[in-house]
């Protein structure tokens, strides 16, 4: 991976950092990389004039033209396959998969082709591509447009997986993903596109495999990913008022995973809850909880708990859908129990 011009792992110095939305941060990252490297291009459905249904790419086609911001047919498997081949032939494709729910259609191309070609060729070939897709429920989009399926790709050797939770992380992780020589899948929370946060004017990238402590604390560790980071931070506020100091830590990449950071935090606080919006069963909370339970075994005062999405297809009805995702209240209650305050 070509060394980034500037590396930062934490939040930016408050000093003079502008506030922009996560959507703008993504667009900036793509624009900067498209300018920097002619081999970078974007392909996907309605990515050009339309700028995607989420308007995340709006304007890019005006600067880079339809050859580099390519509208494709509704052929997710096809464009993923094209991405693998183009990457093997020296390009750096960013394949746009509108909804993370659609990766079911492209799993063969990413898990059997992109992920394995470097290894199968004995290190000769490589597929430096990025799959940009989304996750997250509560958008009233029902069972096939609301899933968080990052566990699938996190399971596959050869793939790297990034889950930004702030505009700052989104920009830095996406730039790193594009420069990485291995295939990377990056999931963006649809509901977070309008979230604002400080992002410096200067260029930077964020190395993979480095967790970020979003909030320091001493009594309990809340490991949270993507959309759940804001939930964990809100819970930490509530816990504060109860005199419970929660540390919120965001792995930022499920692979490579910063196991040490999770274990170290849990050793310090002696309690941990892992929160993720993917289905709980066989989801990423299991991996992180198992790692902490093992690595911090002799330091834990309570069992490591997990909170994922309810194990049901995401229902359409708002009254039902809202019950399926972790909330600050649920996290707070569980944390209280673990801290013997319930």
């Amino acid at each position, binding site marked *: 991976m070509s060394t980034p011009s500037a590396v930062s792992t934490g939040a930016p110095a408050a000093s003079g950092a502008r506030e922009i939305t996560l959507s703008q941060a993504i667009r900036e990252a793509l624009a900067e990389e498209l300018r920097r490297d002619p081999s970078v291009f974007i392909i996907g459905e*309605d990515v050009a*004039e339309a700028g995607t249904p989420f308007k995340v790419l709006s304007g890019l086609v005006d600067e880079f033209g339809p050859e580099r911001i390519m509208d494709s*047919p*509704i052929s997710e498997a096809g464009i993923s396959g094209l991405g693998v081949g183009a990457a093997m032939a020296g390009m750096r494709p960013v394949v746009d998969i509108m909804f993370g*729910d659609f990766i079911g259609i492209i799993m063969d191309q990413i898990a059997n082709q992109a992920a394995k070609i470097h290894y199968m060729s004995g290190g000769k070939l490589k597929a430096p591509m990025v799959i940009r897709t989304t996750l997250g429920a509560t958008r*009233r*989009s029902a069972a096939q*447009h609301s899933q968080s399926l990052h566990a699938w790709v996190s399971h596959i050797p050869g793939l790297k997986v990034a889950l930004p939770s702030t505009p700052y992380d989104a920009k830095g992780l996406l730039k790193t993903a594009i420069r990485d020589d291995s295939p990377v899948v990056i999931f963006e929370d649809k509901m977070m596109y309008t979230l604002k946060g400080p992002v410096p004017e200067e260029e930077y990238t964020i190395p993979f495999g480095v967790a970020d402590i979003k909030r320091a604390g001493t009594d309990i560790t809340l490991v949270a990913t993507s959309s759940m980071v804001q939930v964990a931070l809100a819970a930490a506020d509530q816990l504060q008022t109860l005199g419970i100091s929660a540390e919120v830590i965001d792995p930022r990449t499920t692979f490579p995973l910063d196991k040490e950071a999770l274990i170290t935090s849990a050793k310090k606080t002696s309690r941990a809850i892992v929160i993720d919006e993917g289905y709980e069963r066989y989801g990423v909370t299991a991996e992180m909880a198992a790692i902490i339970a093992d690595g911090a075994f002799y330091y834990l005062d309570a069992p490591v708990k997990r909170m994922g999405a309810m194990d049901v297809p995401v229902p*359409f009805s708002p009254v039902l859908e809202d019950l399926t995702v972790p909330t600050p209240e649920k996290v707070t209650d569980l944390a209280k129990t673990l801290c013997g305050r319930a």
Partner: protein
Amino acid sequence: MSQTDTPPAARQRESGGPSAEQWLKMYRQMLSIRQFEEQVNDLYMTARMPGLAHLYSGEEAVAVGVCAALRRDDYITSTHRGHGHCLAKGAAIDRMFAELLGKEAGYCRGKGGSMHIADQDTGNLGANAIVGGSAGIATGAAMASKKQGIDRVAVCFFGDGALGQGLLYEVMNMASLWKLPVIYVCENNLYGEYTHYTETNAGDLGARAAAFGIPVAHVDGQDIRATYEAAAKAVARARAGEGPSFLLCDTYRYYGHHVGDIQRGYYRSREEEEMWRRDRDPIKLAATWLEAEGVATPAALDEIRQQVEAEVAAGVKFALEAPYPEPSEVDENVYA
């Protein structure tokens, strides 16, 4: 090729032909769909509906003409733009509104919503939020009919955009190979989201089905007579065990890709939209023909309109007042 130039009388002979009453029922259904969608748009605009919806306005003659050629026990699979298919196959307006509002009285107890309405009682195996995702389901249902020795047919509705999904070609091959009673109805409304189909499709659309030995009919999707007759032919062929057909229907959606797609200037022109509404509206065309044929008087058609409006208004009212499902339902129906 389009059927519209053949004189109606001739067509009726050739196809057995619907009765005046049946044509009027089709007219009523088209109106119901139009009114229904207008209401859905209004519910969205007034923030009374959760999420989004993809309106079928302008395409009514496809769903209605095709479903008029089906029996109640025949199957259909539908799409994200599925309200029209659902109503045309016989679903009730009030329970559909209830589903769109996430209410327990909805066809899926509020769990499916606009993109997943299904109604077993009328053979609707469900709308689908995966483009092309139901191609296998429709073909499989047709395979089941054949295995069960029933003469049920299955209709797979999908848009021009679904031609991008490889699954469609896999199942068309098997449908032709095994002579399955399935009818692929491609609703070419010119756009897939915000992109014109010519920008995403190479070659000839119909040839893609013909290549698998499937007969293709290119149909004027705005002419209820054309869609009905093409469907009737395909259904007869399917019931006779002669295999699948492919109907390529030219049509147009009046509204945006979904209710939130208001600024459309960057991908299609006002003029184009106005032309279709003015010259190619399936309901206007049907009215003109029904009057010309003496099947109905303007007054009779207007009465139908008033009845439909009342029904739709009642349906919305019912849905708005209906209760939400109990929270306890959230983890029910995960497993059968």
